[in-house]
């Protein structure tokens, strides 16, 4: 019995509506509603155990949701077995069939779909070209390097031209260099094939580089969905702000609200202007977040600056990290790009002034 549901947002590739997944007493996915657009590179980002892989397995069909439904276009697929879903997966361990050649692996899905031998051959050759493994079709997959196995796994998932390709931390087993080149490769493949990619990772840098949109997850819930820039520059809450990149949190009171920004009085009396998202509180004690590279250093006592004591200065090549603390002990990190003129970094134990530029800080949701 296939259930059809009319959906107002029939433009999405995947619609997840109120998905809950319980394992015995553990709630892995907690009321997740997500819309993934067609032809999108969508990333599920979160720490291990946040439910992102379970969400992926629900889409693939290896798990069935406890409640809620998954729509593919307008069709409810949440209770279909994996082989009845036009969705393919690239597994974390690649899961290449060790007893088959590269070509047999890539052609497996088409063979199961009952395609003709000639059609399979044409598609396999095309896929081999796409992932740059021409001429390796007859190799045993066990003879390939990690990076090559990764490409075969991708080609195998793409060969049946699924509506969605799910990628479960596929780069985690590769070393840094290879991972970086595969990130670019994945973007290219997604653009060339026009298939919607749903990518799962715990690596925030990977997510920021590759994704059109990112959903940040923690404890089974989706905390924020948005573009890389959105998520990085306007984190919705403390978890997102802390998980993505290094950041500073400062306590204060929201004194005045003016549309999408507000005036915050920090503990030491300095007033700063901070951005306000729709979910952010409109009054009372709040936390603001500011990225280390957005803080400017000035002389102590300069107007509108916050006094801070330098604790440690760490040289990083491209930039220098200055660890400071405010009078009340709040730690603040500042990142300064290193210039050729060798602009002086402050000395340890020096007293400096910190300036939070207009619009660089953001009030967090509770």
């Amino acid at each position: 019995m296939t259930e059809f549901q009319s959906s107002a947002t029939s433009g999405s590739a995947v619609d997840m509506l109120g998905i809950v997944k319980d394992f015995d007493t553990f709630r892995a996915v907690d009321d997740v509603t997500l819309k993934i657009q067609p032809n999108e590179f969508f990333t599920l980002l979160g720490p291990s155990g946040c439910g992102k892989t379970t969400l992926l397995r629900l889409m693939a069909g290896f798990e069935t949701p406890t409640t809620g439904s998954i729509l593919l276009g307008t069709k409810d697929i949440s209770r279909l077995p994996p082989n009845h879903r036009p969705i393919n997966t690239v597994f974390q361990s690649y899961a290449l069939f060790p007893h088959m050649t590269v070509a047999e692996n890539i052609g497996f899905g088409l063979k199961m779909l009952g395609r003709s031998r000639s059609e399979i051959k044409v598609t396999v050759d095309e896929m081999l070209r796409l992932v740059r493994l021409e001429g390796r079709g007859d190799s045993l997959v066990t003879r390939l390097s990690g990076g090559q196995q990764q490409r075969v796994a991708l080609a195998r998932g793409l060969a049946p031209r699924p509506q969605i390709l799910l990628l479960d931390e596929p780069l985690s087993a590769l070393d840094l260099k290879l991972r970086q080149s595969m990130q670019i490769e994945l973007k290219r493949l997604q653009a060339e094939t026009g298939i919607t990619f749903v990518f799962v990772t715990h690596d925030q840098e990977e997510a920021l580089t590759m994704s059109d949109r990112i959903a940040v997850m923690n404890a089974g819930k989706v905390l924020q969905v948005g573009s890389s820039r959105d998520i990085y520059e306007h984190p919705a809450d403390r978890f997102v702000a802390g998980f993505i990149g290094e950041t500073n949190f400062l306590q204060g009171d929201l004194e005045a609200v003016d549309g999408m920004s507000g005036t915050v009085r920090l503990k030491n009396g300095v007033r700063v202007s901070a951005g306000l998202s729709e979910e952010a509180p409109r009054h009372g004690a709040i936390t603001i977040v500011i990225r280390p590279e957005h803080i400017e250093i000035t002389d102590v006592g300069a107007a509108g600056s916050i006094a801070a004591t330098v604790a440690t200065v760490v040289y990083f090549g491209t930039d220098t990290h200055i660890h400071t603390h405010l009078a009340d002990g709040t730690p603040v990190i500042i990142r300064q790009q290193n210039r050729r003129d060798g602009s002086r970094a402050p000395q340890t134990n020096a007293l400096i002034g910190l300036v939070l530029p207009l619009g660089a800080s953001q009030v967090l949701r509770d």
Partner: protein
Amino acid sequence: MAKAFTHGTADVKKQPGFAVIAAICIAVLYLPLMIIATYSFNAASNIGAAWKGFTIDWYASALQNREFYDAAILSIGLAFAAMVISTVLATAAALGTTRGKRWRGQTAAFVTLTTPLVIPEIVTGISLLAFFAAVAALIDINFGLGKLLIAHVTFCIPFAYLPIKARLEGMDETLENAAADLYATRWQTFRYVTLPLVVPGISSGAALAFIVSFDDFTITQLIAGPGETTLPLYIYTRIRRALTPEINAMCTLLLMISFIFIILSFAISKRRSQ
């Protein structure tokens, strides 16, 4: 102690005398077999006699012995049938107790499947003797060789089951997920992915089942009817009469068949264990 460490790298694993004991151990295990095999080529007609020259006459006379020949055919046929049936049952059982979610009673099923291993053969033998007698008293069936086949299949199941189960457990379940993800039905997943990968386990288990059935003496002796003489039973009746050099040849032949299957099983299970 310091003295032992003065030359080159210290071998922290070495324990004095252990190598000697290991060598004695191998000697103890193999010498009797080697002696019996060597004497099967001794030309002397008296079994305890000194070496009188090389001959293969005893093999010729063993192979020309009609009773020995019949017993060998029965043993091989029985072992083959027991191997096929027990391996099929064991493969199904191993699939049922390893893949996917655990089910209620799975541990009980595992314990039941392996019980034949912990019941002494003599107890199994008299149990089956009593059981078949009771069944024959209730309903008038003549099991004939069926008795032997049923008994052999039953005690072969765990020997076939364990290697297959081990192989399945060592196999990444994601492979089957991947097949399902690539549109394979449950049967296609089994046919194209699970089965080819578990073949080494099945072959190894089948070889063990064959040996165990082929070598069985105690249970078979207790339940075999007249005329149902397997190779071990035949050799036993022969040594009750007299030890002759021909028996050495027969024993050596019997060992050879076991060896082939052991080495086969070992080689298969070691090969390509990814």
